[in-house]
Structure formats: C-alpha cells, structure tokens
C-alpha cells in the first residue's frame, strides 16, 4: 500500500508540474520598453509611468534607500522585493489602456505610483 501511495503522490505532483510546464514557453518574452525607476526616501521617481498599451514592458527599479521595499500591485499582478541599495526588474504584461496603481508595501503612505498604459 505504501508503495502504491508513494507512486500516486509522485504521479499527482508530476501531473501538476507537467500542467505548469505546458504553459511555459521555451523562451521568455523579450520586452520592448524598458523604464528606469528609482526608490529614494521611500518614494518612487517617476511616480507616473507611461507605457504603450498592448505591449510588454520592463521596469528597472533601483532602490537607493538602505532598507528593502516591496513593489506591490494587485492591478499589475506583481509582488517583488527589492533589497536596500539593490536593483530589480519588474516585467509588465501587455496592458489594456488604463491606470494601474502600485505601491511600496513597506511604506504605503509615501511610496505610491501609477502605471498608465496608453
């Protein structure tokens, strides 16, 4: 019985991994637009980011504060921690025209911004 269950478990895990893998394309999409964003004194600069609608883009975020910040946006479906003094890239999926607010989760009151797809 134990062997059978072991197999079933591996089968279950395998199925899920395969299901996941089917959605992974062999190559990662190359984004066309790259925008530099800086975090300093727990604020984003620029805090208003314009990207072309319908095209993927990349935000290269540089955290000039000493402490970590989490770029968080449920509208953009992104959560990404960027360490103090570090840089991180955030990939934006192709967006419909509109406004997509984001924030720094660790300093919600000051770290705010919006991505505008047009």
């Amino acid at each position, binding site marked *: 019985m134990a062997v059978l269950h072991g197999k079933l478990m591996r089968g*279950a895990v395998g199925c*899920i991994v395969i299901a*996941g893998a089917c959605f992974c*394309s062999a190559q990662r999409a190359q984004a066309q637009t790259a925008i530099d964003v800086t975090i300093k004194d727990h604020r984003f600069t620029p805090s208003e980011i314009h990207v072309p609608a319908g095209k993927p883009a990349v935000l290269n975020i540089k955290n000039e504060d000493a402490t970590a910040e*989490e770029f968080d946006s449920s509208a953009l479906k992104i959560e990404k921690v960027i360490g103090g003094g570090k840089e991180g890239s955030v990939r934006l999926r192709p967006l419909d025209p509109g406004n997509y607010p984001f924030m720094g989760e660790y300093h919600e009151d000051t770290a705010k911004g919006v991505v505008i797809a047009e």
Partner: protein
Amino acid sequence: MLATLLIVFREVIEAGLIVGIMLAATRGVPRRGLWVSYGVVGGVAGACLVAAFASEIGELFEGSGQELFNAGILLLAVGMLTWHNVWMASHGRVIAQEMRQVGAAVVAGRRPLAALSVVCGVAVLREGSEVVLFLYGIAASGGTSALGMMAGGVLGVLAGAAVSALIYLGLLGIPARYLFSATSGLITLLAAGLAAQAVAFLQQAGYVNVLTVSVWDTSWLLPEDSVIGRLLHTLIGYSDRPSGAQLVVYGLTLAIIVGLMNLQPRARVVSPEAAAEMTSSP
C-alpha cells in the same frame, strides 16, 4: 505604529489561516502538534534565511530568482496538499469511524504528517520572510519612531496569531463526522489557489507568456487588497483580476486532486449501525 501592526497582521494571518486548516485537518492525530511545530519553527528559520539572502536569491535566473523561488515553494505546497488529500480519500473514512469509536485518541501514525508539516513551513516561510524584511527595515532606520513601530510589529504578530487561533477553533466546531470532508474541501481549494498564485509568479517572471490577459475585473466589488479579499485570496485563491492561465491552472489542479481522490480504492467502511453498536456496548 498602527500601520506596522496592520502590515504584519495581514502577513501573519495569511500563514496562520493555512496552519489553522492543517491543525483542523489533523484533529485527533497523535503528535500532530509536534509536526506542525516543526513546520512553523522551520518556516520562521527559513524566513530569516530568505530575508537575509533576498537580494542574492533575486539576482538568480537573470533577476527572476525571487519569482521562481516563490513559484517553486508554492508548487511544493500544492504537491504536499495533493498527497495529503489523496491519502485521506482512502483512509479518512476508517479514521472518522475510529474517531467515533474511541474518541479523539486515534492511532493513525502512518498519516503523512510530514506533508502537512512542509505546508505549514512553506506558508510561514513565504509570508514570514516579508515580515522579517519589513521589520528589519524599521529597526535599521532607527530613530525614535522605530521602537513604536517595532511594538506595532510584535502586536501584529500576536493579533494575527489570535485570529488564526479563532479560525482554528471555529473549524473545530464542525462535527467530527463532517470535519474530514470539510477540511479535504478546504485543502483542495487552498491547493488550487496556491497553484494559481504560482502561475502569477511565473507570468511575472516572463516564463509563462500565454493567457496573460485578465479574464475579469472585480476590484470594484471586492478588492484583493481588502481584508476579506485577502482572506479569500489565501483560502480559495480569490483574485480580482485573474489571468486566463491562472484560471486554467486553478481548474486543472481542482480536477487533478478530485480525480486522484476518486481513483482511490475505498477503504472498508463499517456501517454506522455497527459502529453505534460497538460504542454503546460496554
């Protein structure tokens, strides 16, 4: 201080919900407390490690290490939850029967407690590493407000733990007869939600580039950032703007777990009448 309390509170409650469900699912199993403790303690230790090496992890895989790491541990949890549910599908009835016969002192040592231990650990690790980073940031920034904010953080942990305990006690209110099917259902939805979150991370990292468009937008009705939105996000994987791929994986995970559970040979079940006779006899 209040802002700190709220941030820590909502991270703790996300992990706490999952631990609460794991505890409810293992009601009456000997040594389950020990296994869940291993998971939580391991998760806290892991959270500190992950926080300490956050930047290093992030720099792996062309800057997508963090997303891949998150997706990986989420999928690990999905696998463990699947294993548990499939195991329960074949043994749960017998255990439920025994519980009625001999009370809570059930001997079910073969149960895959390690799987649930891993799930607790992963939940604590994921949410905990964010809390550690956040609190570390406060401590490092120093100043007079740091102490107040630290106090807020500690209160946030306590409040989150208290609410999690209430949820656990609420689950215990479910009669033992229904507890297994209730927790199996909860775990299935939880696993599907975690799988969908893993897809979101893979999409964020650019590894999944199909069906990226949001299928619906219910952020006007129930924002994912609200308290209820977050609870539902953790419990059943609610998203106010799910992508097509997330929905597909959510559905697939549900189908796979339910399918595997139904494929299990049913263990021998003693009829309720016979069980009642056994308990009532001296």
